[in-house]
């Protein structure tokens, strides 16, 4: 009985939250489009997605799916991963709004950009 009532309660909450988000979106239709997920994959010597906009406080996971190591280096030194071997990842939480250009320290032709909004 207890578990059933909990389930009902959380279901009700989900519904109200969804309604609240929908209401917020309707009220501010010009909001920037935020990334649906917070993962950047490295495939075929390319960061995917290459450009991403996230809210401050978002953690981004960079996952290397190539069979050669890559790294993630922010151009102005904000962060710097180690060399990521295949299936290794690096996570960074973007607390400060701004534009972060990054590249691969081993293959600098690989570039990407993350815009962090307040």
């Amino acid at each position: 009985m207890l578990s059933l009532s909990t389930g009902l309660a959380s279901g009700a909450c989900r519904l109200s939250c969804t309604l609240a988000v929908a209401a917020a979106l309707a009220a501010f239709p010009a909001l920037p489009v935020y990334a649906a997920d917070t993962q950047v994959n490295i495939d075929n010597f390319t960061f995917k997605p290459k450009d991403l906009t996230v809210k401050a406080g978002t953690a981004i996971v960079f996952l290397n799916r190539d069979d050669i190591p890559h790294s993630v280096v922010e151009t102005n030194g904000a962060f710097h991963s180690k060399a990521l071997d295949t299936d290794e990842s690096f996570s960074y939480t973007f607390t400060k709004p701004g534009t972060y250009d990054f590249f691969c320290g081993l293959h600098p032709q690989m570039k990407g950009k993350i815009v962090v909004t307040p």
Partner: protein
Amino acid sequence: MSDDNTTNKIDRRGALECMIWAGTGIVWTLSGGVPKSSQLLGFGAAQAAEKKTAGFSFLQISDSHIGFNKPANPDPLATLKEAIGKVSGLPAKPAFMIHTGDITHLSKPGQFDDAEKTISETNLDVHYVPGEHDLVDENNGKAYLERFGKNTQGSGWYSFDDGGAHFIGLVNVGNLKAGGMGSLGDEQLAWLADDIKGKPASTPIVVFAHIPLWTIAADWGWGTEDSARALELLKRFGSLTVLNGHIHQVMQKVEGNVTFHTARSTAFPQPAPGTAPSPGPMLVPADKLRTVLGITSIEVKHGKAALAITDTPLASA
């Protein structure tokens, strides 16, 4: 084939260049200024039998990538051992060996240990330059320099003389900039200018570095953004041979007095520019792998104008 304006010349160099492309291996002979190349099987063997002039040869190995374990070659230590076996089996003992970088895959101590132990079995002096894979330890290259940095400058560059030629090992894989290619940097270029000051223009010069010092594919990072500055410093020399690795395949370009050449890897092949979505390891059938891996021998002959380069695969096609 390179897309420079020398490729369509049907002269000796052009013909030799084409041979290299079709070929199974290249030996560099340093003979007085103009590099010369020959295939190891067939013509090259005949030529070797024909003359035993005074001079010497040295070897180039590259891109051993110890620690790599993906399908393109699950065991690059085994293929390095085979390459070293080829070196040890050469009829004439080379003067020394150069390794043009990516000794390891991830700069780990065990990877350096395995590579060094195998390579030392030749009992040859080995002159290393780092590849980008050799500088990815936590301290950005300290592990490499602790092992191979003795008597070097900056991030590991140096020069030495042997057999009447001047050898210059450069580092173009450190401190790479976003959007760029390989880079030598101001400090190293200033050192280079000083290093060659006062040397007679007749001195044969051999420059070696990991990433090619000519642009092969900019979108793949296969070039060095300030290599023109180095070549400008070296242009007064009558014989300049530039030996690189990084691209895991044989390519050669001759431009005036300068011969550019890249060696095969001993670990895995990479695609020719434009033939694949990325320059990553190329998977070939297991029984073909050894035909696309190999070593390079460079022969230095006195009183002649050329180096002869022979690239030898681990197995014939």
